[in-house]
């Protein structure tokens, strides 16, 4: 009898098909904006604003060239007098009666995002791991109150603290500095990091450390050799959450940075082109901006899933 193998909790084939269809439909729906942005980044400026929108178009790298360069409009006579174009992007620009005058600020802003995003993620996870271990293992006076206090920093909307932080940063000389932005994002992420990681440490039985201590290791060595390797999944999940926040953060970056430490999010929307916003360049910036987080998330997706469903099933 084959029916004996079917459990009541098993999904029927029809149920599976319905669920599959729904998931695929939802995935396609959510991917439309992403696909549109990537497509726009390869369009020419006229194609990008044509109506009705063009689904099929001739791909060009103009958006990317415009994103990384500054250009000036010249007369055809002047351009002809320059001699043959040195590179493929020179010729691409000259077709629009322009010449490249230098590098744009995008690469610098992108680097700022990398430094601030990864820097604050590293700090938040590093401090969070130590704090989570302490909260999980040591008898700390007022432990629950402290944990709640840490969480309470998340309860206020960022808008409420925007002005005090702006004034504070101006007074401290942290405005528009890498350090200032790293500290700010670390502070915001730390509450999430401590709470998430504490759950992971709680899940690791104390016996592992006790075994290591009895075997002749110090408590710190036991932490490094026994606890940390088992926290890997938790640390990865926490790092993704922290990176996503600090990478995408817009409001504080807009308020507190303008030049040296400006990150990509406030910069991308103000990429001005010939006759208004240069949509292919904006789309190109956005596409490049998406890459690190997507790669990071795809690489660590197993851990991320574990981080999200964490605590749902007690082993």
């Amino acid at each position, binding site marked *: 009898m084959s029916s004996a193998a079917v459990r009541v909790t098993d999904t029927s084939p029809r149920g599976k098909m319905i669920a599959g269809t729904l998931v695929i439909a939802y995935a396609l729906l959510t991917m439309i904006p992403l696909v549109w942005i990537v497509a726009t980044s390869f369009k020419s400026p006229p194609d990008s604003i044509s109506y009705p929108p063009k689904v099929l178009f001739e791909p060009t790298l103009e958006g990317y060239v415009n994103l990384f360069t500054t250009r000036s409009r010249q007369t055809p006579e002047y351009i002809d007098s320059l001699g043959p174009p040195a590179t493929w992007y020179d010729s691409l620009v000259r077709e629009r009666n322009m010449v490249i005058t230098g590098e744009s600020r995008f690469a610098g802003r992108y680097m700022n995002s990398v430094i601030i995003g990864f820097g604050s993620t590293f700090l938040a996870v590093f401090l969070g791991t130590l704090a989570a271990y302490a909260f999980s293992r040591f008898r700390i006076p007022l432990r629950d109150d402290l944990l709640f206090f840490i969480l309470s920093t998340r309860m206020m909307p960022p808008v409420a603290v925007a002005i005090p932080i702006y004034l504070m940063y101006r007074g401290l000389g942290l405005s528009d500095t890498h350090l200032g932005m790293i500290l700010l994002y670390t502070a915001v992420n730390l509450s999430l990091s401590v709470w998430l990681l504490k759950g992971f440490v709680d899940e690791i*039985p104390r*016996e*592992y450390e*006790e*075994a*290591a*201590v*009895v*075997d*002749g*290791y*110090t408590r710190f*060595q036991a932490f490094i050799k*026994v606890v940390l*390797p*088992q926290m*890997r999944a938790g640390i990865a999940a926490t790092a993704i959450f922290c990176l996503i926040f600090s990478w995408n953060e817009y409001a504080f970056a807009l308020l507190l940075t303008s030049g040296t430490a400006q990150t990509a999010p406030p910069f991308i929307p103000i990429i001005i082109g010939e006759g208004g916003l240069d949509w292919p360049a904006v789309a190109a910036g956005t596409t490049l901006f998406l890459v690190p987080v997507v790669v990071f998330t795809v690489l660590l997706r197993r851990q991320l899933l574990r981080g999200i469903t964490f605590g749902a099933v007690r082993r």
Partner: protein
Amino acid sequence: MAEIALHDVRKSFGDFTAVTSSTFTVKDGEFFVMLGPSGCGKTTTLRMIAGLELPTSGRILLDGEDVTFNRASKRDIAFVFQLFALYPHMSVRQNISFPLRTQRLPRREVRARTEEVAKMLQIDTILDRRVTGLAAGDRQRVALGRAIVRRAKAFLMDEPLGALDAAFRETMCEELRLLHERIGATTVYVTHDQIEAMAMADRICVMNRGEVLQIGAPMEVYERPATRFVAGFLGSPSMNFLTAEGGFAPGADAIRIEGARLAMPTAREGLACPEAIVGARPEHISIADDGALRGRVFAVEYMGARQLVTVETAAGRLRVRTPNTVRVATGETVGLAFDAERLVVFDPVSDRAVRSALFDHSGALA
């Protein structure tokens, strides 16, 4: 190899006293089993010996050296945990060699010693496997290997067989005992399972509610229990307790239960109480027509070579273990004879056993 001595060791957690004043010595090379129900303080005592818990007061000596305040990592003691605590991110080899890798030994020696231990435990074929996929028995052996490899002064084991199923536990019991005979290391073994304790121990230490009640060889603890708790905790089915009338003076050799006169080992001390508790193991009672106490057979349980007969008497229900050649039927009235030399009398107030001829030549009540 070492001798472990505890002097007046106590441990309390806030208002709760986990261990009350324990003083005992585990001899060099001895297999010492701490036995008691859960929450009796046996694990706490073990953890104090290991250094995972600091005693509230008292001293712990390892080979004559006071280690009371030494850190666990400085005590040179190996510990086998109940759930093995194998590091899931390491292979079998890495797990076993873990204690050696902090000792700055040459790589070649670490390798040689790991493989020697693995061979001894018959896990040399799975050295490079991950520990997460191993069967319970193999995990147990890896945990033992990690303890043995260091050649520590003593082994402490906290219910190491608790996670195994019954059939396998018996095999491991034997293996552990053989291993002990081969290595000869001082071993303190904590369990709540009296069968494990009986099978392996050189000496058993019975604990209840944080108190050490009796320490002795398995036979000693079983046959000459020092307190009523020890008598009842050991043995399955457990000892029968009957209430006898009247006290007795030193030299008395009988006691009265419900009008019947029961011979008992000659008392060496008197009991002034109006009542006394008499303890008789099921195998020390037999069914005999001329038995002093009479009762009606309430139930008969057939157990292969023997049978267990429950008899309802005026003094309460008694369990009797007899050979199955004795034919009895439910409802029948039978007489019960007691093995006079084996009866234990307890003081109903202190629950302590009253000194009698049974305890001559025994240190149990000293």
